[in-house]
């Protein structure tokens, strides 16, 4: 395993959060499910990391584990999660409770299920502030109104007394963001924050996250299945497949110089508006593997069009070119260079013929 110690771009500070070889497995009736299988990540202050993957790739479980939110007694954790010099995996419940919200905050996909329907939103924001700070009720209330204003909710002084059902989906997600920011965390983890929302509302929420990140200097981890969402917000991108990171690098590297056939497949399968319409979309054949029975060797092997003998051995996530762009694929860089475009856009080759 590689220790991803290289920081992105100009950020040279010590990592704020560092995950080292995290493994999460669940004991089930059918066997052991390896949801996360050796993930290493780092996040620098103020940086935005995009984690992209399909359902079941382990992206949410990784971040839920960082927050120690998985309480399933059948879950087993290995590895280290270092935040400000402490290993979060070893903290007591009381100690981790202090980190949640104040140090690392999280927002989820469905804002309706994350808000309590029987309490006013203001009360819910105040509760969180008062859990972390010694502050009067009035002061907390005033702060709640400020926060609602900061996330762009019109008439915050009145809206603070409304219940969650009185807000639209986009507005509820704004409330969640207000709540997450209430204790000025260092890190905001956003797990598919816009998946349940319409495109126009998605654009609003992404702009809001960007603005708040820039205003408050919060580091952001954005989990999504949509490459388009991370295209202009992330500094670095990690692509996950079957519980592992299979490619990781700067945003431009991953989009313009992708080095893993799975990433190529993801890029090819998007129906894009900015290009002429292809005759067919590039589909990745087959299904993601069962996490109960991962194939030996490369997990993407059975679906990979470029599989060869070496793929029976499990590839490590390596920085082969020495440029901070990591991938877990046995093909060498020259081969990748040759195969990339034809895999992403097979039509280009057909046309050339």
């Amino acid at each position: 395993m590689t220790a991803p110690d290289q920081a992105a771009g100009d950020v040279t500070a010590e990592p704020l959060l560092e995950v080292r070889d995290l493994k999460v497995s669940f004991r089930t009736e059918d066997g052991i499910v390896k949801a996360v299988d050796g993930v290493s990540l780092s996040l620098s202050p103020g940086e935005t990391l995009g984690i992209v993957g399909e359902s079941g790739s382990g992206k949410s479980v990784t971040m839920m584990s960082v927050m120690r939110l998985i309480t399933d007694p059948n879950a087993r954790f290995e590895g280290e999660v270092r935040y400000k010099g402490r290993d979060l995996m070893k903290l007591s419940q009381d100690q981790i409770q202090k980190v949640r919200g104040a140090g690392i905050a999280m927002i989820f996909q469905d804002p309706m299920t994350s808000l309590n329907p029987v309490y006013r939103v203001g009360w819910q924001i105040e509760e969180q502030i008062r859990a972390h700070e010694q502050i009067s009720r009035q002061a907390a209330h005033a702060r709640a109104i400020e926060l609602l204003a900061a996330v762009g909710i019109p008439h915050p002084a009145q809206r603070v007394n409304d219940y969650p059902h009185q807000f639209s989906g986009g507005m509820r997600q704004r409330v969640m963001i207000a709540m997450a920011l209430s204790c000025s965390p260092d890190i905001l983890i956003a797990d598919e924050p816009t998946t349940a929302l319409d495109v126009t509302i998605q654009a609003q929420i992404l702009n809001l996250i960007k603005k708040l990140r820039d205003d408050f200097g919060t580091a952001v981890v954005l989990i999504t299945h949509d490459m388009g969402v991370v295209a202009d917000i992330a500094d670095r991108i990690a692509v996950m497949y079957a519980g592992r990171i299979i490619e990781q690098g700067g945003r431009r590297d991953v989009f313009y110089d992708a080095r893993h056939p799975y990433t190529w497949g993801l890029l090819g399968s998007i129906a894009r508006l900015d290009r002429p319409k292809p005759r067919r979309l590039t589909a990745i054949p087959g299904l993601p593997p069962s996490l109960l029975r991962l194939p030996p060797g490369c997990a993407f092997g059975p679906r990979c069009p470029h599989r060869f003998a070496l793929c029976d051995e499990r590839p490590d996530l390596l920085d082969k070119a020495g440029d901070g762009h990591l991938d877990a694929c046995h093909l060498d860089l020259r081969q990748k260079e040759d195969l990339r475009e034809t895999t992403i856009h097979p039509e280009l080759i057909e046309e050339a013929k």
Partner: protein
Amino acid sequence: MTEASATPAPGPAAAAEPAAAAGRATARGPATAPGPAAATGPDTTAGPAAGNGEVLLRAEHVTKYFPIRKGILLQREIARVHAVDDVSFELRAGETLGLVGESGCGKSTLARCIARLYPLTSGTVVFEGRDISRLTRRQLRPVRRDLQMVFQDPYASLNPRKRVGTVIADPLHIHNWGTRKQIKQRVGELLELVGLSPEHVNRYPHEFSGGQRQRIGVARALALHPRLIIADEPVSALDVSIRAQVINLLDDLQDELNLTYIFIAHDLGVVRHVSDRIAVMYLGKIVEISPAEELYQRPLHPYTEALLSAVPIPDPDLSEQRTQIVLEGDVPSPVAPPSGCRFHTRCRYATEICSAQEPELVEHGTQGHMAACHHPLDMARA
């Protein structure tokens, strides 16, 4: 493939010979039920070239209001949700009409009105030359053979307690199609047609992944050789890599079986990929309807422009270069839609006339490109 080599008795050779649609209506089932559809005998010239065929479906002033009631015993209607309001369009055999808009814009309700899963408040739906908007359940039955739906959530639309074979055979049983043996064979054919193994016939839905379940939903819709398939967000619940597989499948089936689609989705990329024409809906109205490429190249309605601009581009440089139009606020309530143009509350070009007078859906410049806007965007714009 499976269609062309269909069994002699129940096998309608429709796919093999697209022009034989008239004969097809009668050849459809072994139990010779001519049905009203056969009488209309549509003369079809629909080749694979989309939209050249005869008008398969015509919606005229389709309106659907849902009443909001109050009171326990004497329920008074206190308001109405204007889900679909005076929508008209035509659909030609062999083409794909994409229907886009945000959640709550009425696109699913419109689809369900057309399929007569909801009764219409007013307006007519003419399918295969016949007004189906006032038919009774029994009268609708033969229509349903030709008009099928595929739903969004493949987890909710398949009965978890029925085997896949039973799920797909259900429409065949309901329509008294063939003998037990013929049905069994047809189910096998259908599974193969959608890219599943005929051996899966005895499995239960939970044994399949989301993408495979959606294939089962498609197989069920195809069972009776429909002419029109209304697909309501068929790929929205699927993962990106699987989404492309299902879209390609629907594409292939259309070519093979000469199907007509109404394809509903909120993902504009997907809609562009599958559609020949696209209708954009906002608050129960069609605000723009146009040939697909034309819509993306030259949107006329400010709402379409904003919708297109909100789609994330999976390309960092392009994404940074473009200026996004971010719409303020949310979609207004369909209980009390804004006066005049329903988009005027969020439109950056709105003037006085927009709140006073409702714009009509009229053609602007290019043939077949219609928009309902007082200030359609400059068509000469680069």
